[in-house]
């Protein structure tokens, strides 16, 4: 097991009249190099679940597993773990506190105790990896950047740790279409070229659906579905009942299939859709 949980349960404020069970008996595992999605309606426990994966929250019962070993609660080991499992929070630009983009991205490597030269190298590398121009941005004030650039700087601030796993909580919230596409291109690149394992939580399937190879669905703190993307997305009715719509393209393909056109329905991008339809046309002609 690369990264996952075993019978994880989390209760907020246990032992008080305000105790609420956020997660109940969750077991799953992702493999190294996965592009994994954690989906579910808002309030289903996505954020709570992913904050367990690098030890920011401790399970009330059950285990979090990384590389076959249970995550320990030792402080030094947690620090090492958080370096290997990077975590980008929801609206990460709200955490900015530095006066320059450089300092913002340098926060993590400085905390790791690197010297100035190494810090500089890591910052430049991280900015480049995030698709930003280090020379143009390093001295800018992070609050002056556009929404999309801020999000990328926030991701660079975590990439500067050189993590092996990158977890992102609702990374596309409040981004427009162009920046969303940009962000997913970036994540695909990191996944393919750098071999980074990527875990994304989202309630908005659109762009993410085509990229994922493994999907976990949460429903009111319980594991509703878990498996390869094709398998989970095949259960369209159930997803729909959970309030999770497949991308519009996929819905159209399902519609065509219902009208009697024998097209493939496991299609998540326009390009794939065009291919599938052309294929049917070609078969009709011959």
């Amino acid at each position, binding site marked *: 097991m690369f990264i996952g949980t075993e019978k994880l349960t989390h209760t907020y404020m246990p032992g008080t009249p305000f105790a609420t069970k956020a997660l109940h008996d969750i077991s799953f595992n992702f493999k190294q190099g996965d592009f994994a999605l954690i989906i579910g309606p808002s309030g289903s426990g996505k954020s709570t679940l992913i904050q367990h994966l690098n030890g*920011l929250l401790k399970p009330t019962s059950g285990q979090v597993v990384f590389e076959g070993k249970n995550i320990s609660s030792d402080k030094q080991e947690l*620090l090492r773990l958080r370096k290997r499992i990077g975590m980008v929070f929801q609206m990460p630009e709200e*955490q900015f506190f530095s006066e320059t983009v450089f300092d913002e991205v340098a926060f993590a490597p400085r905390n790791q105790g690197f010297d100035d030269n190494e810090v500089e190298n890591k910052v430049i590398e991280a900015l480049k990896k995030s698709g930003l121009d280090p020379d143009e941005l390093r001295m800018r004030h992070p609050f002056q950047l556009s929404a999309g650039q801020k999000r990328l700087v926030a991701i660079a601030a975590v990439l500067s740790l050189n993590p092996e796993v990158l977890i992102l909580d609702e990374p596309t919230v409040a981004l427009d279409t162009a920046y969303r596409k940009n962000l997913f291109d970036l994540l695909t690149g990191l996944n393919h070229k750098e071999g980074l394992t990527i875990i994304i939580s989202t309630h908005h399937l659109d762009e993410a659906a085509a990229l994922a190879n493994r999907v976990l669905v949460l429903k009111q703190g319980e594991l509703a579905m878990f498996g390869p993307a094709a398998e989970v997305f095949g259960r369209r009715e159930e997803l729909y009942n959970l309030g999770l719509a497949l991308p519009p393209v996929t819905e159209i393909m399902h519609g065509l299939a219902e009208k009697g056109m024998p097209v493939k329905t496991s299609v998540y991008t326009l390009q794939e859709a065009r291919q599938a339809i052309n294929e049917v046309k070609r078969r009709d002609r011959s």
Partner: protein
Amino acid sequence: MTRSITLGQYIPGQSFIHRLNPRLKILILVLILVLLFLLETFGALLASLATALAMFVLAGIPFSYLMRGLRPIFYIAFFALIIYFFFTSGGVVLLRIGFITVESEGVEQGLFIVARLVALVLFSLLVTLTTTPLSLTHGMGYFLKPLRYVGLPTEEVAMIMAVALRFIPTLMEESQRLMRAQLARGADFETGSIFRKAGNMVPLIVPLFVSAFRRADELAMAMEARGYRIGARRTRMHEDIITFKDWGALALVLVLVALVWVLSL
């Protein structure tokens, strides 16, 4: 972190004490506090302590909250006891260590003071634990009303207090989220000297301020959009109606105070 602030932490419930009108609840609390100062015998104090405990049970408040609420006065009680034990003279000598003596008068007075203190805190705690902070401020605002005649904008002060109370949990949650976010980036909030620790708080404080100001801006705009104006008369969605039961409770306590006064227990 959220656990350390019991004062103003409301525990939801449906008991008679929960449903008591907040204005009268405050008035009754004041009367009870006066009553506690009028009591002069151990028996009467113990009876009031027993009453307080019974009311906690009636209100369905877990015992742990009671203990947590008493924790802040533990040291005060402890030092009061020591001072009374060792420095008050009179009565029979109970213990003699060298030239220091513990005498019966001191023990009696010390225990009496501590019992009274505990009773005071318990009754106050009962009110804050069974009343939402919001209705508590509205109640207080009502008693502040006469100050309007000397030019104090009481309605606005009550609004400021209500807004501040409303945002305490929000900011707490936000600071915890921020803390976890910076921890994920390798921040360290626990080790180092006090100066280091203070420096390490910058990644927490700056974003917290930024978001607090943004929230304040948004709130002001939303309030204005809904017609909030300074100095305008406001009505409330949940009017606090004083029922027959509320008057009954007040009358009961008044009778009790009068009785104690007359009999001088």
